[in-house]
């Protein structure tokens, strides 16, 4: 009974949040939206992302994620991801200037046999990469690059920011293990869950000495 009740409450909150987000989105179509309007929209998106990440992780813990595997054109997927990313759209650095999020076509390496197509659940993977992007954007100085690399039975997504590097990574990893409630830890855990649901893939974060932080998510073919 208690479980049903909490499920109902959570569902209700999520729906209300979704409506609020769409209202704010439509409101922001107007040219003369005050800064508060934009801020409210950003906060709503963050809150929603946290709730969805949490719910997806909860589902993963309870019964595992069941990816609905479809054929996806990788370059188009990454371009759409960047173009539609709410984190990218809202990205401003701590110094007050816009962060550029860039789908890096030159680094993209489609596998010739697979013809640049991959098989995965685009909604789940998008959810995961959006949270990785959100993280990168928060720590970037000016720029975030996103691309994919494809090998015979693996698809690798990479998100590279030009942020401070090592120190941040340590901090991230620590937060991730110590306390899952922070949004960074939640985001990373979500990425892990989504990668694992795709043929036991994995994720990693590494510091590129002075060149920023590289997030990697590896998906394998789902049997």
């Amino acid at each position: 009974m208690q479980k049903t009740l909490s499920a109902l409450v959570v569902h209700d909150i999520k729906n209300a949040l979704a409506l609020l987000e769409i209202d704010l989105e439509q409101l922001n179509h107007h040219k003369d939206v005050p800064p508060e309007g934009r801020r409210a929209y950003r906060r709503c998106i963050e809150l929603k992302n946290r709730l969805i990440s949490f719910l997806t992780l909860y589902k993963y813990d309870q019964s595992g994620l069941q990816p609905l595997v479809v054929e996806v054109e990788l370059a188009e997927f990454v371009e759409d991801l960047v173009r539609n990313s709410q984190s990218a759209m809202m990205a401003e650095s701590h110094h007050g200037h816009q962060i550029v999020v860039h789908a890096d076509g030159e680094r993209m390496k489609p596998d010739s046999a697979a013809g640049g197509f991959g098989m995965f659940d685009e909604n789940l993977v998008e959810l995961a990469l959006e949270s990785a992007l959100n993280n990168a954007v928060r720590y970037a100085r000016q720029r975030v690059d996103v691309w994919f690399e494809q090998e015979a039975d693996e698809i690798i997504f990479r998100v590279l920011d030009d942020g401070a590097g090592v120190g941040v990574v340590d901090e991230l990893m620590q937060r991730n293990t110590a306390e899952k409630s922070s949004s960074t830890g939640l985001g990373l855990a979500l990425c892990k869950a989504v990668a694992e649901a795709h043929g036991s893939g994995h994720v990693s974060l590494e510091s590129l000495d002075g060149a920023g932080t590289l997030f990697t998510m590896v998906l394998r073919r789902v049997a």
Partner: protein
Amino acid sequence: MANAPLQCATFFGKLIENEYVHFNKLSALVIDDISAMRHAVRSQLQSLGMNKVSVASNANDALELIKSTAFDVIMCDYNLNSPSSGQHFLEYLRNENILNATSVFVMLTAEAEYGFVANAVEFIPDDYLLKPCSESKLRSRLERLIDRRAFLMPVLKALDARHYDVAVAECNKLLDIAPDDRRRMDVLRRKSDAQLALGDHSSVLETYAHAATVRGDAPWVMMGLARTHYALGEFTQATEIANELVGKNKSYVAAYELLARIRLEANDDEGAFELLNRSSVILPSAKRFRSVAQAAFLLGKLEEAKLNTEAAIQLSNGSMVEKSDDYLSLAQTQVDMGDHMTAIETLEKNARKHGDVGMFGVAKGAILAQAYFDSGDHEKARKLMERSVSLLANRTDSVAMSALGKAALKTGDIVLGMKLLTQAVQASGQDERIIARHVKKSMIDTGHADKVEDVIDGGRKRILLLVDEATKLMRTAHFTEANQKVNEALGIHEENLEVLMTAAQLHLLWLKHEGMDARVVQRAKAYLSTLDKLVPNNQKVMNFYRFFNDIVSN
């Protein structure tokens, strides 16, 4: 593609241009039980430039709209806050052939677990989107879907017009220009749909083989192959492929259902029951519960039959897949369990909203008669029987006749019982196998096992013999003689599908070989219109019609 950019919306004052899709020319339907959500999605679509956006709060309203309007895009919420979900609705639309091939169906879902559902079913939407979905993401996805639809458009239009041979020809043209494997698979899937509609099994096997060279493990390819082998009577191959599919995906219900049908053909009722049961556990639906209930009933597993029928009633109550016949099945099961008081309550109280007129009334009266007879009220049973017999008059309805026949046997009117059960089998058409099983069970249950063969095979054997003779005569162009055989068979049962199909085919060949004869044209028309009434939208009948029109117009 090189059209002038359209101004669709601004975002933070930035102009968003759309080079690909003219959203202002597209119509959409939004189905969501939450009013605010419906309107929110509608505003998003309107922001994209769509002017014609309709909304519906439930599947029943949506169904009416879909029947009257060919929407370009249908956005359906997965959770419709009723026992039947958006997935049930989609399955219903596809099963009943209501959804246009040109309509793009998108499932909106708040749950990541939709993946589980979609992995288990054969009918998946064109796309699914997690809610809430931002407007720019909605735009990207819709652009992609509309783009894909534009490529397939000549094929989709031919499919919607039911010009299946045109559809196949258009597919062949597109296969030559398909830029990549994904498009190629899209086309091959439509080509196989068209060939299946034409009943062209040997060609469809070639298409699946072609698709298998592109992407051999696609579930629709494997399922299609398995189903075609089944239709050709090649049960070993069908079983092998369906098992392979189930091995790869333990929750693929369509494969279990096909395996169950194969078990039934092999008279392995127990095996069929278990497979059907498994598919209803994976993905519950009223239709699946009904199949399990029926298999259980024929096996004499009355408790299982009862529970599954109750589940079907609960799940379909108030929805478009609600069937009054469920109450008949439930009550008959209860009578057979010796629970006549509950059976009476089921029909007189719980099924009240379905009234007691028409064929439902006949069957209801027949089952009530059994219940009252068992309760000792023979007078009431007799009156109910009389009413049902007079309601039936000279109409033929297998389900009603089968129920009434059983009631007659049970209440002691052996002559009437035998007559009704024989007619029930003869009138059963496409459902013959299943009606015959019910009739057989009724006879055994009422102590008439010795007459089963007479009742089930009597008329049927003669009909089959006559059809066989007519077919041979027709092949050697002895049309008048073939027609005599057909008429004799129709004399036994005028609505037997097999005979009517043979009659129609005979008259079409007659016209083709011997030229136009007004009387033959007249009769051909009459047979076709009877068939169209008995089995609306039947592919074979559609093809006869097209053949007929070709001959007449030449």
